[in-house]
């Protein structure tokens, strides 16, 4: 998948979690949790969606790396697959 395809998918998943947030206004370089209300249940739902749809198993120890939109896309491009 291309960088743009990954980014588009990630935004779709996040939109499904927080539909009322203004995703166009989200700064991809700043912490997501500072801009949109995402709690631990939401985040695990997001990780589960990545696992089910993209086949990528993000271990808990890597959650900290997925803090900004840019970092999430970069991580998934690195492609650690199940």
């Amino acid at each position, binding site marked *: 998948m291309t960088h743009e395809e990954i980014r588009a998918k990630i935004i779709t998943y996040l939109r499904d979690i927080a539909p009322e947030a203004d995703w166009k206004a989200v700064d991809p370089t700043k912490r997501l949790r500072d801009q949109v*209300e995402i709690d*631990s*249940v939401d985040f695990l*739902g997001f*990780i589960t969606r990545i696992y089910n749809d993209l086949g990528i198993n993000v271990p*808990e*120890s890597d959650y900290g790396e997925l803090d900004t939109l840019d970092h999430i896309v970069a991580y998934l491009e690195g492609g650690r697959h*199940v």
Partner: protein
Amino acid sequence: MTDEKALFMRRAIAAAMEKSHREIPAYALEKEVRMDFALDWLAAHNAETPPPERILPVCLYIKAVALAAKAFCEFNGHYIDGGFRPAEAVHTGIVIALRSGGLLAPAIHDAHRRPLAELMKSLTDLVTRVRSGHVKASELTDPTITITSLGDEGPDRVFGVIYPPQVALVGFGRVRNAVVVEKNEVLPHRVASLTLTADHRVSDGLRGSNFLNDIERRLRNPESLLPGETP
């Protein structure tokens, strides 16, 4: 959520909180609890499981409180018509915030009897339905005790307001690093503040203190929280 719905929700919360403040003589207790045992155990469990089967710390909180509430019945039930009615089962209400503001605290039924994995599924399902507005009225009146946890970015401790006619609310502050003195050793550990707000018509501080001690013991022994039990 529409403005009208949000206003309706805010009014309902206001009515409940006013009633609580007016009618319940509440006392509050706090205990700082070491969380490393529970969190290390959880990390090891989650490292071996794919995302759909991972368990969140709040699930451990729910199970520990539910088991303790089964043992300490003055914290599990309802105060109605001038008397306390203890409940047979433990249906833990869990406070779930709505993104637009407002909150609901629906029940996870029979939390004391169910395995952690099932509690996790119930929690995820509840959060989804709260956010999409598909919670049944009965789920909001079924809780026999309520738990509130404001998460990693939350405050160090929370003293909540009891949701009438319940008689207790257990709060969890954020997990944080603190220096703990235990057996003359001074060491940094991950801890969380565990709080109890309880109805003084039904229980007193000594029982409340023992109730918190029981929750702490269970959180220090997370393996004991895994299984369910047959009724």
